[in-house]
C-alpha cells in the first residue's frame, strides 16, 4: 500500500506526495505525457533525443547535473513509446535543489546549438551500441513495422533511422518543448522523508508561476484489426536462428489487461513456467525462450521469442510454440498453476514496495493512467483473474491472423 496525497496547481500540474520516514532520502519523479508515439513519421526518435537535451542547461541554470551532484544527488531519465520520465534521488534535506532545477527546465530550456550538436552524436552512438552493433539488436526495428501499419508504435523510441536524429534542428526542438513540456502535461511525485505541506509550498513557489501553455490533445491513428498473418525473414550475421511472434492485445486501461498479462506469466514466468520447462528443458528445442507483454498504453503486443537449439528447424520451433498457445485455448489452466502465478505476483508486489524510487514512479504512471490509487489496486485485479478469463483471452488473441512473425536466420 502506497499512501499519498494529491493536489493540482492552477497551471494544471498534478502534484503527489508519498511520505516515507524510514529513509533519509527523497525522490522527485516527473513524468511528461509524451513518448515516441507522439512523433511525426518523418521525425522519429525525437522524444528520446529530447530527453537528452533536457540535461543541456535551462533558461536560468547553465548546468543541470552539476548543482545536483554538488548537493549529493543524482538523476536519470528514460523514454518509452508512451512517456518520458525523469527522476532525482537526493538527501531529503536538500529537496529544494531538485525543485529549483526541475522547475527551471519546465519553464524553458536554454536551447543551445552546441548541446544539440553533441547530443545528436551521443544518441547516434547509443543507436549503434544498442540496436546496430549487437547481435539481434535490430529485432524491434523490424518487428514494430511488421506488427503496426498505422499506429506510431511502428517505430522504436530510438527512431526509425539514424538520419532522423542527424537532421533534427533547433526549431524542431523548441516546437516540441512548448507543445509537450507544459505543466498540464506532467505529473510530479515527491516521495521519501518529506512532509506534504512543505512539499506543497515548494511546489507553489517553484512550479506555480510557470505558464500553463496550450493543452496538447492527442489524436493518434488507431491500428486497424489485423486480419491476415504476417511474416518477415531476416538474414543476419548471428550464430543462432531466432523466432519472434507478436500478437495484438488490449490497451493498458482495458478490463482484460491483467488476465492478458497473466497469460505470459503462465507461459514464461520463472523456471517452472510452461515454455521453459517444456520447450527448453524437456524438448531441448530452444536455448532461450520467453513470452511477455509490451505493456503499452494503447493496444499492445504479446511477444513470444526464442533462440533455436542447433539442428532445430524453424518449422519445428514454431510448431512447438503454437502447440503451447493452443493448449491455453483448449484447456483451462489448473487451479494450482493459477495459484502459483498469483502467489508470485503477490510476493513481487511486496518486494516492489521496499524501493522508494519504484514507489514514486508507480504513483506517477498510474496517475497518468487516470488515478494514482490504481497502484494500490493492481494486485487485486490480478488475483481476481479466473481460469475461464485466461482461456477466453487465449482464444481471442492466439490466432494466426492476429500474429506477426519474424524469422531471424543465421547466415
Amino acid at each position: 500500500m502506497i499512501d499519498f496525497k494529491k493536489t493540482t496547481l492552477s497551471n494544471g500540474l498534478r502534484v503527489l506526495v508519498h511520505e516515507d520516514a524510514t529513509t533519509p532520502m527523497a525522490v522527485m519523479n516527473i513524468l511528461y505525457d509524451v513518448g515516441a508515439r507522439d512523433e511525426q513519421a518523418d521525425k522519429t526518435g525525437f522524444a528520446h533525443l529530447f530527453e537528452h537535451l533536457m540535461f543541456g542547461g535551462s533558461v536560468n541554470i547553465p548546468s543541470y547535473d552539476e548543482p545536483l551532484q554538488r548537493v549529493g544527488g543524482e538523476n536519470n531519465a528514460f523514454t518509452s513509446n508512451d512517456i518520458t520520465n525523469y527522476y532525482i534521488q537526493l538527501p531529503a534535506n536538500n529537496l529544494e535543489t531538485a525543485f529549483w532545477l526541475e522547475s527551471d527546465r519546465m519553464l524553458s530550456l536554454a536551447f543551445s546549438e552546441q548541446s544539440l550538436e553533441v547530443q545528436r552524436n551521443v544518441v547516434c552512438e547509443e543507436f549503434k551500441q544498442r540496436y546496430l552493433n549487437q547481435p539481434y539488436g535490430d529485432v524491434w526495428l523490424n518487428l514494430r513495422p511488421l506488427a503496426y501499419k498505422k499506429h506510431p508504435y511502428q517505430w522504436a523510441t530510438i527512431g526509425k533511422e539514424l538520419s532522423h536524429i542527424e537532421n533534427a534542428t533547433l526549431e524542431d526542438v523548441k516546437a516540441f518543448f512548448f507543445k509537450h513540456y507544459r505543466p498540464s502535461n506532467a505529473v510530479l511525485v515527491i516521495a521519501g522523508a518529506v512532509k506534504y505541506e512543505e512539499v506543497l509550498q515548494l511546489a507553489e513557489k517553484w512550479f506555480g508561476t510557470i505558464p500553463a501553455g496550450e493543452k496538447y490533445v492527442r489524436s493518434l491513428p488507431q491500428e486497424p484489426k489485423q486480419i491476415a498473418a504476417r511474416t518477415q525473414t531476416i538474414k543476419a550475421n548471428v550464430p543462432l536462428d531466432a523466432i519472434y511472434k507478436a500478437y495484438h492485445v488490449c490497451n493498458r486501461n482495458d478490463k482484460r489487461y491483467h488476465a492478458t498479462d497473466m497469460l505470459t506469466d503462465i507461459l514464461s514466468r520463472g523456471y517452472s513456467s510452461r515454455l521453459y520447462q517444456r520447450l527448453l528443458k524437456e524438448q531441448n528445442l530452444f536455448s532461450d525462450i520467453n513470452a511477455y507483454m509490451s505493456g503499452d498504453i494503447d493496444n499492445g503486443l504479446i511477444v513470444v521469442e526464442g533462440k533455436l537449439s542447433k539442428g532445430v528447424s524453424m518449422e519445428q520451433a514454431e510448431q512447438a510454440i503454437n502447440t503451447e498457445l493452443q493448449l491455453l485455448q483448449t484447456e483451462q489452466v489448473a487451479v494450482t498453476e493459477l495459484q502459483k502465478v498469483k502467489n508470485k505476483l503477490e510476493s513481487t508486489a511486496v518486494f516492489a514496495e521496499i524501493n522508494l524510487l519504484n514507489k514514486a514512479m508507480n504513483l506517477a504512471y498510474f496517475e497518468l493512467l487516470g488515478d494514482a490509487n490504481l497502484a494500490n489496486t493492481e494486485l487485486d485485479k490480478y488475483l481476481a483473474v479466473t481460469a475461464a478469463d485466461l482461456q477466453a483471452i487465449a482464444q481471442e488473441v492466439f490466432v494466426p491472423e492476429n500474429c506477426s512473425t519474424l524469422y531471424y536466420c543465421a547466415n
Partner: protein
Amino acid sequence: MLNRTQAPSFNTIDAIHLLQPEKQVLPNGTPLFVLNVGKEPLVKIEWIFEHKQWSQAAPLLTAACNAMLLNGTTKHSSAEIADFVDFYGAFLQTESSFDQSSVTLYCLSKNLTVVLPLVKEILVAATFPEKELITYQKTQQQKLQVNMQKNDFLARKTFNEQLFGADTAYGCFVQSQHYDALTRTDLLKAYQQIYTANNCTIIASGLLTDDAVKLVTTTFGETDWLGEEVPLMLQLPQSANEKCKLVHREDALQSAIRIGKLSIDKKHPDYVGMRVLNTVLGGYFGSRLMSNIREEKGYTYGIGSNILSMQHASYFYISTEVGAEVCAAAIKEIYKEIKQLREEPIPAQELELVRNYMLGMLLGDLENAFSYADKFKGIYFSGLDYTYYDNLVHTIKTITPKQLQELANTHLQENSFFEVVVGKN
C-alpha cells in the same frame, strides 16, 4: 520575485549510520549474520561459499556446479524444485563469481518455514542428473556463441586474459570446449568440496522473527553437511608481456575499449583515496571522462572507470564503446585525462562536488535491510571491519588535492596500463 539563477542553500552529510548484523555461530560452526531490519514481511538469506581451488583443466567446474544446483536432488526433480519455489512466491537464485559461489533466497516471511528445508536439500543432496548436464552444456554453449559476437564481452574477456594470464581463474577465457569437458563425476566432486557447512557463511536480512532465526539455526546447524577442509590455492596474476591488443572486427560500427592495470586491494591504506580519485575520473555522470568524451565530444553513449578488489588480486579499469572512426581519438583523450590527474591538482570546487556526491550516494545506498547486508559483505569477505566505512567517509571529507595528485602519480602511471580494443582502431 523568485530569483531562479540563485541555487537554494543546501546541507552536507555529517555521518553515515550503518546498521550492523548480529553474529551467531551455529552448532556446526557455520557463522550466521542476522540483520533484522524493515517493516515489510520479507526476507533475504544468502548462503555463501568460498572457492579454494581452481583447475586449469576444468575452469568451468565451480560455475557449472553452482548453476546446476537447482537441477535435481535425491528427492526432487528439477521441475519439482522449480514448481515448489514458484508456488511459494519465492525467488531462489544461484550465483558464481571468481571467488565465491552463493545461493540466495528471497521470500515472504510467512513462507520461510516451507522453503528452508528445500534449500537445505539442495545444499546437501543435489544430484546433477546427466540429462540436465547435457541441456546445460548446450544452452550455455549457444549463449556463449551469442556473447562472442558482442564487442564489450570480448573486450572484457580479452582484457582479463591479458591482465591476469590465461592460466588463472581470473584470466581464463572460457571457450565452448570447456563446456564439453564437464562431467557429472567432476561436478559431484566439486559439489562435495564447496558446499559444506565449514565453507559456508549465512547472511540473513529483512523481517526476521526469533522463530525465523531459530529455524535457520536448526535447519543449517546440523553436522550432517560438514566436509573436509580444503587448502586455499593462491591465484597470482601472470600478466602478458604484450601491453596493447587489438581484436579486429571488420563489420564493427563501434569499438569496445578497455584500459587498466593491476591495482591495490581494499586493505591497502590508499584504497579509499583511490575511490575518490576514481570518482573524479570516471565514477559518476559528471566525471571527467563522461564530460570530455561523451558530453563534449559525443564519441560515446557512456564511459566509466572502476576499481575492483577481489580475493587474490585487484584491478583498475576504464571501459567504453565508441564510434569506430573515433576510437584512436577517444583513447588519446582517456590517457590525457589520466595524465592531467597526475600533473595538476583537482580544483577545490570540483573536489567539493565529488565529496558531496559520494556521501549522498553512500546515504542513498542504505535503502533497506538488503542494502545493509550488502555493506556488510563489502567488508567481511575482505577481512575488514566497519572502521573501513568510517575511514571512507573521513577520507571523502578530508582528502586534499595534493594527496589525490600523489595517488595518481603512485597508482596511475601510464606504462603500467594494459589496453584492449575490440572492433577497429
